[in-house]
């Protein structure tokens, strides 16, 4: 429970972040300002914002819980799950998207394939983000209750009001700039737990010795690479094929919430540098969210639920004042994820659906207002649907599973679309829909097909393979696009107008 000084820290954070966000409202006068910050953002802000968006408050509890159970292998998701995907994004895809003047990733798919592919991809992301909002609200609020003594509805309303106000008025600029502060607060809060925890554990060497002496079950706890036949969800084969080759690329290249801020940078150099800055800060994330789980294992072995590792550590180790700092870090994690989802979903809705199918050729200001209204509607939807998580406890896993269904197929059509001129519009559509269908089938029959408990890494790899094969097969039997239609959309083809790839790999 929080003491007076803890409350003071949390309230100071909430008030400060709202004032900071509102300050940037003065720079928003058009749709371009609202969705892409008028292409004015510096690399360092975007790089830090990528990390803040990626890490939610639940990662502190969830990743700590997994490292408590399975050891350091969970760190692969931030280390190998970032590199080399962020290099590929920085040097190939992001500059390409930036030069094409895109607002959204589905917009590229629409230009490269057809409007059906754009609509399917965009609607899929909108549905995912909208459902994810409510789940994020509820899961984090429930997590806060025992730690902070706040009722779930109180946490949800406070967060929604603060985030809603600055996201509505300040657009992407407010989102990114508040993310910068939120990332710093998250890092300070996480580092506090780490330093205090390691001090109590007697240092890193003592911690390793203590856990290694717990028995055979803990011999792999400090190894990143797990055997192919491990019973944990992280065999090296899944990490290599599912995570490194597919999921990390899909996330860093195909996720609107990540890519959109890179498109808002002031130059193509800043766009590339922003991704590399994000990669640098991502290297520290496992240290902050994973190591507390290991410290908790050394201090409190035998917890029935791994997710209790982090809260137990916080309650027993942190004095008043530092707890408030950590909770401000939790709030920062939640708010930085929520604000990015709101702005990105509003962009997808306005640019890919509203402007394309509902009202073409309206004024720039009209589309900005539509984006702002979409932000409010989404926020209300997220708040109202948050109790669904209480009624359906498996909904969080279900939504994350839903995301894994289409990451592989989306990456497959992005990859072929950019590097294979022969890919046709129908190849893209069949690859996308067929790849998603393959994911669903593999998931439905996972108990018969896979030997590990949660085979989502394998499912994303095989759905990616299915997406590629279906795209290639369909493209080869359908009419190829004329070269002039593809110029500026496919590597190795000369660009006209705004598009074009000049990456050395192209």
């Amino acid at each position: 429970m929080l003491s007076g000084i803890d409350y003071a820290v949390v309230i100071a954070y909430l008030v400060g972040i709202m004032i900071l966000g509102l300050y940037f409202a003065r720079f928003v006068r058009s749709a371009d300002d609202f969705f892409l910050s008028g292409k004015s953002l510096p690399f360092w802000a975007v790089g830090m914002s990528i990390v803040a968006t990626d890490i939610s408050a639940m990662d502190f509890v969830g990743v700590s819980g997994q490292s408590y159970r399975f050891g350091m292998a969970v760190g692969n998701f931030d280390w190998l799950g970032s590199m080399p995907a962020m290099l590929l994004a920085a040097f190939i895809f992001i500059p390409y998207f930036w030069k094409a003047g895109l607002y959204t990733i589905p917009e590229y798919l629409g230009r490269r394939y057809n409007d059906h592919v754009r609509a399917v991809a965009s609607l899929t992301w909108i549905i995912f983000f909208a459902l994810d909002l409510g789940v994020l609200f509820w899961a984090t609020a429930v997590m806060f209750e025992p730690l902070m003594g706040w009722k779930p509805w109180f946490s949800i309303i406070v967060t929604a009001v603060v985030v809603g106000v600055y996201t509505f008025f300040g657009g992407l600029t407010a989102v990114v700039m508040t993310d910068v502060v939120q990332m710093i607060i998250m890092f300070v809060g996480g580092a506090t737990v780490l330093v205090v925890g390691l001090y109590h554990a007697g240092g890193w060497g003592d911690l390793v010795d203590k856990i290694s002496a717990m028995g055979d079950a803990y011999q792999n706890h400090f190894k990143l690479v797990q055997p192919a036949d491990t019973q944990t969800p992280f065999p090296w084969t899944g990490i290599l094929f599912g995570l490194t080759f597919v999921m990390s690329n899909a996330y860093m290249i195909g996720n609107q919430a990540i890519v959109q801020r890179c498109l808002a940078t002031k130059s193509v150099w800043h766009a590339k540098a922003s991704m590399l800055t994000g990669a640098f800060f991502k290297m520290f994330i496992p240290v902050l969210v994973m190591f507390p789980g290991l410290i908790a294992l050394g201090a409190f072995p035998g917890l029935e639920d791994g997710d209790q590792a982090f809260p137990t550590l916080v309650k027993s180790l942190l004095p008043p004042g530092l707890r408030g700092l950590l909770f401000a870090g939790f709030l920062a994690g939640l708010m930085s994820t929520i604000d990015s989802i709101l702005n990105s979903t509003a962009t997808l809705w306005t640019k890919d659906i509203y402007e394309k199918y509902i009202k073409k050729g309206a004024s720039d200001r009209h589309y900005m207002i539509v984006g702002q209204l979409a932000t409010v509607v989404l926020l209300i939807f997220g708040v109202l649907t948050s109790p669904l998580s209480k009624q359906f406890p498996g909904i969080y896993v279900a939504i994350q599973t839903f995301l894994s269904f289409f990451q592989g197929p989306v990456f497959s059509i992005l990859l072929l679309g950019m590097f294979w001129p022969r890919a046709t519009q129908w190849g893209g559509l069949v690859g996308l829909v067929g790849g998603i269908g393959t994911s669903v089938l593999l998931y439905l029959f996972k108990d018969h097909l896979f030997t590990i408990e949660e085979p989502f890494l394998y499912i994303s790899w095989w759905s990616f393979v299915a997406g590629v094969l279906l795209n290639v097969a369909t493209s080869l039997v359908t009419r190829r696009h004329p070269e002039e239609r593809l110029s500026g959309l496919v590597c190795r083809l000369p660009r006209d107008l705004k598009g074009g790839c000049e990456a050395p790999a192209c």
Partner: protein
Amino acid sequence: MLNLHWLLNFDWLRGISPAAAKGVFLAIFIVSGLLVMMIPRAYIYEGVQDPRWWHNLKLWALGVLAMIFTIYYVF
């Protein structure tokens, strides 16, 4: 069905030890670094008005790769 199971679960790679698999990951970082070094200078400095040494994004990328290589080498 047995063949599908063997394929989907990567049973065909079970003979590879974790140490060899670790070598594969380290090789990925080395190859990535080599590819980064091959990027033309003009592409790296594109969009910069007055290039300085710290604008060289190759150094940034190689720095991050060195960090992750060390992590995977140690653990």
